[in-house]
């Protein structure tokens, strides 16, 4: 019963109507004028001291973006976004590219302390076994504040820095791989991101290296009326391995804020990338006021043979989630995995899923997606599994289950399964149900309250996915799920 007690304590100890990370840091920011023009793009590029080719690349994307229209196929509703009413860049005034933590604005450090993110290496070291350390890249609005353990990682040959630094220091790698997985004109939000992306992480793991520690990026939106446009690029060279975690929070505000990210993963021969996300942007209040619009393009390319990319995501935040982490299984024998928990409550809308595109021979993929909808929220799983003509022996297993809590919410599944080769074996199953009365009865009969029983059953429902998360994240994610569902019973 220890585990149950832990859950109960968890529920009790947290004031649930509060979004825990909803505080604002008062700090002086540097921003261009609102709105998006070529000048904004030039401003961002200039602020980052980018080389000419990068500016041209951005401007080209911007011109293309102007010819595109916002997609409407997803099952989410929101008032039109005024792209001219957003700040596209916001950086703390002090400490432009700080060399050490001492140069970072104390207010920012305080923010991360409140969020529980260790930025001082010595703090992390205390009492933690070396293999359990986590290197962090902290992104605050539009800039990377600090990246820890850079030196130690460099000894192993691992490059872990902000993408802005990478453009300066490793232009050859950036030019070689940027936008090779998500093309510039992939979709409306990705193209917008190409034009105005500010910061994010860059990771390069050299041949045969197993990254000595977990890498992680923590994204924080702080400033009002700003959009965050992160760009992450991870390259795992032949035979390497990396596990990367991503976390995100934002303050509580009445107006909606835009987050349009692009994440590209590239795995060469025999390499493996494990990418985990705990997304906890501010979801808006129960009536749907405020919250982050999360329009994200995440895609991994298993370019080499026998490579593997694994996505794990826990989605509890954001007013709108529009996100389909995908795998292009190009290399023969490559593997793709997608594990997802999407919890929605209040007026949240989630439209998420994955694409597994089997191009190479003997490729396999696995999709486990769990959606939990409560309150007045809508949760949609949208996924595609396809096998190209030449993808002999492609295998896929998909399981998506939805749990509905309350009669005001909706759960939808829209899977596309396309097989163009006879040797493909695709299996798909999906169920939608509410928590079984017999399960509730069983728990309550043993003395659990209704809320405790729901928490226990939900934990069991999502366990399969939580197991895929790195240890320290799994605990955090479990807490998040309990919080998100609070108040949904009765």
């Amino acid at each position: 019963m220890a585990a149950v007690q832990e859950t109960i304590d968890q529920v009790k100890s947290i004031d649930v109507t509060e979004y825990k990370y909803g505080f604002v840091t008062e700090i002086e920011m540097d921003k261009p004028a609102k709105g998006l023009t070529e000048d904004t793009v030039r401003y961002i590029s200039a602020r980052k001291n980018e080389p000419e080719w990068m500016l041209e690349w951005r401007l080209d994307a911007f011109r293309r973006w102007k010819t595109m229209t916002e997609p409407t196929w997803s099952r989410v509703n929101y008032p039109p976004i005024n792209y001219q009413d957003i700040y596209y860049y916001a950086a703390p005034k002090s400490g432009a590219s700080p060399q050490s933590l001492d140069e970072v604005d104390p207010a920012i450090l305080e923010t991360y302390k409140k969020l529980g993110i260790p930025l001082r290496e010595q703090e992390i070291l205390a009492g933690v076994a070396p293999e359990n350390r986590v290197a962090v890249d902290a992104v605050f609005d539009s800039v990377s504040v600090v990246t820890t353990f850079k030196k130690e990682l460099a000894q192993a040959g691992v490059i872990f820095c902000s993408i802005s630094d990478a453009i300066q220091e490793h232009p050859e790698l950036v030019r070689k791989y940027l936008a090779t997985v998500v093309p510039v004109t992939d979709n409306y939000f990705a193209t917008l991101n190409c034009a105005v992306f500010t910061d994010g992480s860059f990771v390069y793991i050299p041949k045969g290296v197993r990254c000595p520690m977990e890498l992680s990026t923590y994204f924080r939106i702080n400033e009002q009326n700003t959009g965050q446009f992160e760009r992450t690029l991870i390259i795992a060279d032949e035979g390497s391995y990396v596990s990367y975690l991503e976390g995100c929070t934002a303050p509580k505000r009445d107006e909606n804020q835009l987050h349009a990210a692009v994440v590209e993963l590239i795995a060469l021969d025999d390499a493996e990338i494990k990418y985990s996300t705990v997304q906890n942007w501010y979801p808006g209040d129960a009536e749907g006021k405020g919250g982050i619009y999360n329009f994200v393009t995440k895609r991994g390319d298993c370019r080499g043979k026998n490579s593997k990319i694994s996505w794990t995501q826990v989605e509890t935040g954001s007013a709108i989630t529009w996100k389909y982490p995908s795998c292009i299984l190009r290399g023969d024998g490559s593997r793709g995995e997608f594990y997802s928990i999407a919890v929605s409550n209040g007026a949240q809308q989630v439209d998420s899923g994955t694409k597994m595109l089997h191009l190479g021979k003997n490729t396999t993929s696995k999709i486990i997606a769990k959606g939990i909808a409560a309150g007045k929220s809508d949760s949609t799983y949208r996924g595609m599994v396809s096998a190209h003509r030449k993808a002999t022996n492609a295998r896929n297993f998909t399981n998506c289950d939805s749990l509905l809590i309350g009669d005001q919410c909706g759960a939808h599944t829209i899977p596309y399964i396309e097989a163009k080769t006879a040797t493909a074996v695709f299996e798909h199953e999906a169920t939608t149900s509410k928590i079984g009365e017999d399960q509730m009865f069983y728990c309550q009969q043993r003395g659990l309250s209704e809320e405790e029983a729901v928490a226990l059953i939900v934990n069991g429902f999502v366990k399969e996915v939580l197991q895929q998360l790195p240890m320290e994240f799994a605990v955090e994610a479990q807490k998040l799920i309990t919080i998100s569902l609070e108040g949904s019973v009765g």
Partner: protein
Amino acid sequence: MALITPLKTAAEQQLVEQFASIKAELPGAGAMRKLREEAFAGFETKGLPHRRLESWRYTDLRNLVREAMPLARRPARPQAVTDRLALQTIAGTRYVTIDGIFSPGDSDLAGIPPGVSVRGLAEAMTEAPDAIAAAFALPEVARDDSALMLNTAFAQDGIVVEIAPGTEVAQPIVLLSLGSGASEAAIVSRSLVKIGAGAKVTIVELHEGVGAAPVQLNHATAFIIGDGAEVEHVRMVTRQRAETVQVQSLLADLGAHVSFDSVAVAVNCGVLRQQSFLRYGGEHSRAALRGINLLRKQEHSDVTLVMDHAAAHGESRELFKTIVEGEGTGVFQGKVIVRQHSQKVDGSMKSHALLLNDGATMFNKPELEIFADDVVCGHGATVAQIDGDQLFYLMARGLPRPQAEALVLAAFVGEVSDMVSDEGVREIVSREIDCWLGQRDGAPKPGAA
């Protein structure tokens, strides 16, 4: 954002001209004429369905119909039609349309069972345009479909069947629609089947082509089923020219406590789109849609269905089996909608496909759209080749490979054909399946061990 008006394709332009020149001749005045004009206006804004529309993603009619064929006229009867009519394949009363036009002379009008009325749609439209116009109303989920708009605008004939409340019809009512294939033509027809409360009936639709010329066929059958009725429906689309492009729509409005079972079989179907729109209007109704698609060469069968649970306590079962060889394409798009107040719905949707060789394609898209919490809904979809273990088992017992394969395939689709409860109809379905299996390359010759 500028609103983009796409240019009309040649076929769409031809349809516009056709409608303008022929609308005065189409049967039905008053409300019916108004309905046709509204439907055509709707079509004009939408155009032919194309792959950018989610529900037509895999069947691009705009691309398939390059030229609109002229609307079929009452044909001079080719010998092939006479020969086919001489065959009475299913025990039961038979009502015939040729190229979509009701043929009373070939129909068992004398043998209509008590409690049943059968007449031509054109006749009914002329006599009671208002009532027919009302019966033409489309369910909410089908209102956007421009193939159905086209059907409403051009439907020139068909069969109207009415079953009085409480009537139990012992033998199947067979609606045979023959494509004469005398010349290239567009066949647009609709059948209306109104079943009174508590009635019990089996309706069999046979769509066959006998001639050499390809056709464009757009047929819809609309069921209105009263409370407590028990209905079995079988539709077979067979013997179509490879170039024939066909849209078959099934519309059904279910009352309360209804039981509706439908099996759709497509063998040698050319290019076929089968779309079904079921609406549960009353509580405690159950419906099962099942189907078999056997595809080879360039054949294409698209099964698209929408089960709209607008009432509580509904049950829906869907099971579709597809075998694809050659360069064939199978499509399954199923959608189960459970509306907010439709609690206690039990839905299960399955699509299974076997691809026999490279080049065969299967697209599966089983969707759930659920707004009520107290439901049990699930779907499953599989695509694979013939199970090697099953083949091994049979071959280890001495069956040559072709026989072993035929047995596995027959069993695969047999799960669905066995659900046809009328024995005579089941036999016809099985015969079509066996015939198709027998035409496979290397298939065992009849009479072989």
